[in-house]
């Protein structure tokens, strides 16, 4: 049942958004963070053939079945994570980037991330003053079970702090910031390790950017359906 085909007609010079009917899985092998179980990954392959002309395009991605939830704990003010319904004690590290000259090879990412897994970490936080990390980084986090807390590019450089005082209203071009943010989300959103998007480093982005990010990244109601009503307001991711 995991090989399906659908006939589609696409008008000339147009873009069609298409939702494939959901594929059913009985007890899929779940993806777990490092230390909680296996990092089971399925290979999802999508291809489109044009009738009479053969294959037109193909795409594939490793996909992990997992449910990540997080909320702010009322008593401590800290963020609590659950993976596949199980609470997880976060053992995290701060990550800026692999190399200051951006020599970001697959081999380097693999080595660095495996090293963090070997240190028994289960989360990396990508600091807002560094990179939105690359697909290869996320691939190896998928493979080695490192969840990723990914921040957007807001730091003390853009909040009116510092000496000399930084621009208090974030980057000059808010539309460009959001364009880059949306494109980054599309680039990375399918990775099992991606656990949380954060507006910036230890602060809230400018109001309009923050509002847009929260709106764009809010969970679709469909994916809240099997959580209790009481908790719905608490789930932020």
């Amino acid at each position, binding site marked *: 049942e995991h090989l399906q085909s659908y006939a589609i007609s696409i008008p000339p010079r147009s873009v069609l958004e298409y939702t494939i009917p959901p594929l059913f899985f009985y007890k899929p092998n779940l993806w777990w963070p490092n230390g909680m179980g296996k990092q089971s990954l399925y290979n999802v392959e999508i291809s489109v053939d044009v*009738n009479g002309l053969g294959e037109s395009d193909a795409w594939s991605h490793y996909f992990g079945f997992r449910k990540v939830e997080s909320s702010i704990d009322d008593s401590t003010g800290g963020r609590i994570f659950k993976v596949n319904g199980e609470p997880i004690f976060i053992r995290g590290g701060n990550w800026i980037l692999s190399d200051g000259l951006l020599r970001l090879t697959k081999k380097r990412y693999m080595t660095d991330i495996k090293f963090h897994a070997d240190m028994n970490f289960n989360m990396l936080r990508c600091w807002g003053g560094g990179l939105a990390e690359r697909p290869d980084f996320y691939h190896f986090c998928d493979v080695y079970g490192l969840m990723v807390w990914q921040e957007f590019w807001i730091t003390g450089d853009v909040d009116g702090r510092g000496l000399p005082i930084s621009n208090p209203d974030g980057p000059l071009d808010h539309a460009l910031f959001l364009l880059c943010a949306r494109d980054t989300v599309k680039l990375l959103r399918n990775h099992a390790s991606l656990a949380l998007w954060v507006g910036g480093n230890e602060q809230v982005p400018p109001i309009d950017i923050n509002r847009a990010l929260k709106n764009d990244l809010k969970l679709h109601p469909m994916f809240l359906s099997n959580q209790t009503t009481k908790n719905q307001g608490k789930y932020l991711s």
Partner: protein
Amino acid sequence: ASVGKLVLDTGWLAARSTEVALTGVELTTTHPPDASVAAPWMHAAVPGTVLGTLLKNKLIPDPFYGLNNEAIIDIADSGREYYTFWFFTTFQCAPAGNRHVSLNFRGVNYSAEVYINGHKEILPKGMFRRHTLDITEVLHPEGSNLLAVLVHPPDHPGTIPPQGGQGGDHEIGKDVATQYVEGWDWMCPIRDRNTGIWDEVSICITGAVNITDPHLVSTFHDDFKRSYLHCTLQLENKSSWLADCSLKIQVSAELEGDICLV
């Protein structure tokens, strides 16, 4: 040409823009760089940064050893032109029938002008965005193509105060780019502010219809016994005719080696 992706990560050359008198049109038509890599051209690090290219050619000391970084001129002192670089390469791809070819940049810091076989395209500002150019119409029939990219540094590279500090003078924060590059409590300033073609460059060959940005999501029911995989994607028909297509999705788990369970 078969459907697929060709990553352009070898054979790149680079040169400081102020040392190249030729235009992008000339570089990609009548006057491509000499294959013997004569000055001012040098072997380039793509993907990578200008500083990475200079280090690869031993034109700067490694900034991450000792106080070597102090020996490298900062963009605040040199001016943005000093770290504005040409990148050049060639690739083989001939146009064929119903095939469409795109040139893809996954990350350029900060903006760029692209020339391919004499045709110019602008890559707008922004470090964290992808760029896709349809180059089907400008490919050479015999398949040998020339590509030159003029990469500009961030608009606000800023100045590093003598005492250093968190993010220098914070000017880099005006751009949509990494902010650590003006130096931080854990990092020396990056002299070129990471200017360069810093992530993957590729050529993609497709038919008339291509797939864009699929989104995969799973939902769970009955204590994770039942699960559904949801997928939404965009399909673009670049042709002038109605495309009747067959869209296939296959999900497999690798059991061992090349044996898969479907």
